[in-house]
């Protein structure tokens, strides 16, 4: 079976030469891939490239559509690509204010994708929004509230509901739990792990936290200076790192 997502030679260099160099990766349906590496190693750049929010200097991104055909996202028409991104893909951002519409109620945030694909029955949209809010443990009584009044953990859960309502197959996550209290982090990770397993989601999750990578991912990519320096099964890479840099990363976590 062809992979769900296959990136080849993805390159994006910012003025100054930093960014992301010739990154290739593959992802199967239902597989969770963690991207780790120190600050500035190019993790977020890679995610933005995959989301086609950033134009690549070079490379291609092949994605297997629901009908089985494989398309290069970088040559797909804009309308088709944007539709795909907001139906079959999700993107959970570290900064929830970038991933939510802060001027719109929680229910409206969840309903937006449905309306974007043509849902025009208010009652049904509301029902779906309520259902998804419950699944991410946000009380239905809060559905008409603005996310401005939500805690950090709630905002992240709202982002998740907003993205999953169209039942995407692939979700990109950029540091979804960082900046949250430890207990809030644990609860959120639990929720993500449950939903990923239940829905069979494929995930690319960027994190600097190796514990998060270990808990959620099947495979791992280690980045340094914009390049992938090591990849493999998460447990193998973390238990028995080959690259000296990865050894350093792992040991600094152990030391912490």
């Amino acid at each position: 079976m062809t992979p769900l997502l296959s990136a080849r030679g993805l390159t994006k260099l910012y003025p100054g030469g930093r960014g992301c160099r010739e990154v290739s990766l593959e992802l199967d349906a239902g597989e969770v891939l963690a991207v780790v590496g120190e600050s500035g190693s190019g993790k977020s750049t890679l995610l933005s490239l995959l989301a086609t929010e950033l134009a690549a200097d070079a490379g291609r991104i092949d994605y297997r559509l629901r009908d089985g055909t494989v398309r290069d996202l970088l040559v797909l028409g804009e309308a088709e690509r944007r539709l795909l991104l907001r139906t079959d893909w999700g993107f959970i951002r570290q900064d929830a204010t970038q991933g939510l519409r802060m001027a719109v109620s929680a229910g409206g945030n969840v309903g937006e994708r449905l309306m974007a694909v043509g849902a025009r029955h208010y009652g049904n949209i509301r029902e779906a929004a309520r259902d998804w809010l419950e699944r991410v443990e946000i009380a239905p009584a809060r559905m008409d509230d603005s996310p401005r009044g939500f805690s950090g953990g709630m905002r992240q859960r709202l982002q998740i509901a907003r993205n999953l309502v169209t039942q995407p197959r692939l979700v990109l996550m950029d540091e979804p739990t960082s900046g949250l209290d430890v207990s809030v982090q644990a609860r959120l990770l639990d929720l993500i792990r449950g939903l990923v397993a239940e829905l069979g989601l494929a995930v690319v999750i960027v994190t600097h936290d190796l514990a998060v990578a270990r808990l959620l991912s099947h495979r791992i990519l280690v980045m340094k200076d914009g390049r992938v320096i090591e990849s493999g099964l998460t447990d193998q890479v973390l238990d028995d790192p080959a690259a000296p840099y990865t050894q350093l990363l792992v040991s600094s976590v152990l030391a912490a």
Partner: protein
Amino acid sequence: MTAMSTRGFARLASGAAGTNFGYLDEQTKRMIRRAILKAVAIPGYQVPFASREMPMPYGWGTGGVQVTAAVLGPADVLKVIDQGSDDTTNAVSIRQFFARTSGIATTTSTAAASVIQTRHRIPEHRLKEGQVLVYQVPIPEPLRFLEPRETETRRMHALSEYGLMHVKLYEDIARHGHIATTYAYPVQVAGRYVMDPSPTPKFDNPKMDDCPALQLFGAGRERRIYAVPPYTRVRSLEFEDHPFTVQRFDRPCALCGAADTYLDEVVTDDRGGRIFVCSDTDHCEERRAAGHRGEAA
């Protein structure tokens, strides 16, 4: 399209006006007419134009004034309304401005006018072929409420990504139990572009649909012109279970007895007495002249 209804366009193509007729110089008018022609060719699409400084503040509808100046010819008869009334300061000033700069005839009668510039209302009297209705528009972008980035709203228009308009209506219902937007209620034009009808009451939205007159919209500060050609489908957005409805008034006009017009509340004395009367003053007067009477008349 009938021969009559092309009249509105003929004025655009021929450059009917004389030199500096209607304040603007001929070159500027040609530029504006080109924008108008493009707007007519792509109904509901916001065409950028090089808006000029006009000798009045933006709040007075400089976009509408420039569009009117560009389409007026010597044979035209101009009517200007503000909130339905011909005699507010704004309406009188604009009418006098054109009378002074072009010497054209003016009127308060909807039926007698060939060009009507308006702020906030569409006349009650059904418009006819050959007439041009020019709207003064403060904010042309209907998506701005939820998406402030112009690069993004432009892309949304280009790709017909209009889900966000329904998010706005969704928020209305969630908050108020019904669609509480009563002004600037968004419409879809010819099944394609979503357009802000300017701050007219949604009561007037149905009049935009299949209208025999040419409708032109000018936004001065925002430098945009858009149009609805005659007999174009204009649909107000709605949900299946919350359909578009117009305001209803629970009493007829106190002066002319009309039960099908948009009413304004008018205070009649300093003891809080108030009556509801047609906001379209010309329409109300015509009806009274024809013998119709309301309870306060």
